[in-house]
């Protein structure tokens, strides 16, 4: 295994004089044995990035290194990378065993060694009892494990996974996700995992790189990405249901700073005091509050930030999503299912100051960043 380092990498596709910058100045590192997820909506540049690492695309500018060597001019077959694709790409006419061992046989690996590698992979992935089956006789989860087994028997330097569980039935996906995370941790394989699904990236990876519009927006642990989103894009993309956003103005009030946002007024987080002092009265900030941080009460209190009327109640099992109409804007709150909430109720909203996110509306950047 080895580290992967991208240094000021660009991917520019030329089209009759018009060029499209699919990846712009990307600098990103995946440490030896690390599990790095690259996440973003379609068109964000994640697939071009992955394809450049794998050698399926040329690198327009910058360098990509695997271990100690720059691989810009190394052919894909010589990079010692194994890939697992969304559709598994198993050979339908070959048995599971032959699918796994084919690449070893092509390389001329001795039969005895192939057997050792196969047995180990089959045991790790718990597929020893399906080695004689054909791909069509397998469930989605089994196909995925076979595809991973095929990738790891080659003893690759880097494992690249492209949406490997997107095709699995939703009921099974969370189970497979947990299994895959456990397995990759045991393998200690340097893994680059590409997905459009923020929950998948957050739940599985050691670190997450969020991309949008060809550029890296933020890279960090699940906690960093979720608790301290660097900009509006990351704040909106990560978390479900999405963060509430509204314009706000900082106003000094006695010795504190409050954020005046349409129909809501909340105390500013202490961490933002100095940043906000410089922007007194400026109307260029966006307040962001996650629905789980909007607390509701059915009577006004000293800490109430605002009031509104319940517009919609959605039961989601243990919890319910409540949309509160505050006059100018609908604000979503997630509360326990045991709370009795009815459409038409008047409620008061409360937000812990430390749970407020504040962004510059011109640049989109978080004031904390």
């Amino acid at each position: 295994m080895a580290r992967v380092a991208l240094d000021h990498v660009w991917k520019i596709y030329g089209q009759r004089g018009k060029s499209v910058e699919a990846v712009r100045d990307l600098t990103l590192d995946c440490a030896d044995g690390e599990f790095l997820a690259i996440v973003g909506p379609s068109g964000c540049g994640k697939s071009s990035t992955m394809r450049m690492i794998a050698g399926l695309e040329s690198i327009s500018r910058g360098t990509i290194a695997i271990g100690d060597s720059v691989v810009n001019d190394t052919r894909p077959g010589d990079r010692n990378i194994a890939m697992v694709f969304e559709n598994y790409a198993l050979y339908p006419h070959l048995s599971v065993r032959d699918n796994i061992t084919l690449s070893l046989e092509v390389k001329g690996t001795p039969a005895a060694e192939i057997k050792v590698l196969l047995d180990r992979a089959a045991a790790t992935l718990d597929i020893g009892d399906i080695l004689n089956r054909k791909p069509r006789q397998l469930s989605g989860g089994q196909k995925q494990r076979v595809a991973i087994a095929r990738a790891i028997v080659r003893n690759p330097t880097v494992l690249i996974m492209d949406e490997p569980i997107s095709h699995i039935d939703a009921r099974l996906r969370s189970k497979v996700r947990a299994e895959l995370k456990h397995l990759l941790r045991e393998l200690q394989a340097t893994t680059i995992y590409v997905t459009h699904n923020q929950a998948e990236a957050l739940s599985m990876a050691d670190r997450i790189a969020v991309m949008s519009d060809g550029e890296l927006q933020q890279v960090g642990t699940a906690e960093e990405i979720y608790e301290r989103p660097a900009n509006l894009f990351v704040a909106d993309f990560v978390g479900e249901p999405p963060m509430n956003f509204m314009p706000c103005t900082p106003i000094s009030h006695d010795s504190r700073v409050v954020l005046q946002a349409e129909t809501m007024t909340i105390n500013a987080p202490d961490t933002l005091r100095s940043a906000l002092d410089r922007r007194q009265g400026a109307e260029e900030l966006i307040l962001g509050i996650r629905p789980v941080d909007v607390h509701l009460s059915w009577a006004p209190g000293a800490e109430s930030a605002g009031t509104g009327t319940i517009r919609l109640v959605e039961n989601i099992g243990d919890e319910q999503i409540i949309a509160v109409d505050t006059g100018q804007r609908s604000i979503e709150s997630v509360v326990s299912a045991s709370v009795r909430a009815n459409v038409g109720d008047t409620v008061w909203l409360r937000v812990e100051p430390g749970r407020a996110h504040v962004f510059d509306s011109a640049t989109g950047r978080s004031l904390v960043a």
Partner: protein
Amino acid sequence: MATVTLHGLTKRFGKTRAVDELDLVVEDGEFFVLLGPSGAGKTTTLSLISGLEAPDSGQVFLGADDVTRVDPWKRDVAMAFESYALYPHMSVFDNIAFPLRAPARSPRLSEPEIKEQVQRIATMLQIDQLLERSPSQLSGGQRQRTSLGRMLVRHPRAFLMDEPIVHLDAKLRHHMRSELKQLHEQFRVTTLYATPDWVEAVAMGHRIAVLNHGRIIQTGTPDAIYNSPVNRFVADFVGEPPMNILNGRLAHRDGRLLFDIDGHQIPLAKPLEHALANAESGEWQIGVRPSAVRLEPTQSPLAVLPATVYVSEPLGRDTIIETRLAGQSLTVKVPGLMPLAPGSPVWLDFDQNQLHAFNNRTGLRLNVDPPA
């Protein structure tokens, strides 16, 4: 609008009973969800109601009318599909007006009358500013509203919706879900809504029928389906992550009945203890939702069951932690972020009031009388 009643409805495809003796009454104005995995019979049921398929036996009533042998286009039901099936070459106005201009329609409407009706529906759906646009110029939400408008101008007696939002990404799906729910509150058209997604079912439905292999397993409110599942299938299908089902045996200690998992003793709340004591003897499993388990990183009087972390998954507002308790898999959902390395010891406690007992052989959940 009307009630929709299904009586002994059966449809076979070859040897498979796609729909098997279905009995169901959907109330006037109700939002009723058919929930089940693929192959459960949801789409076939909707096709039988719309008339696209004919049943082998049984009847379909709209209101008091037996429509089992009535042609589909005379049934006055509107069906929405996963794709909105808008005519791409027509404007929003012409798409909505299409059913009003149908040659078979009687009485014929004049163009001013059509214009007035389309305008009224479009205003209610807040797409009256978009009537000149073509579908390609609309957002997903606007397309859905246009598709609904086309259904609404017909004043159908019932709406049938077959997984209308399943192909959307998570954010948009959430948005469309609340919008559909709100539109239903506004128009109150009797709606049958088929989906494999339990969140959609509990978020939108007044009542839900859980289907499997063409049969209704349970009918009830979202609360009943989630908190009192009739059997292991419903308990497992509704909820994410699914309910934990643990093997063990009943044991007596100090005059009380409890559940023993390999020497670890799970106390039971009085109503469940009482119900188990009175139940016929048999093997039982205990069910507990991931959110009804407390997890502590250190041993405390509040959490005494020793377990080991298998994998922990931070999801932002919650962390899902899969553990091993006496060799069995047990998933816990804790609020916030709790990073725990695989292999870490943790201590658990079950919320006694949220335990379910399932008969090992039949899978049925033991009915517990509410405390007097």
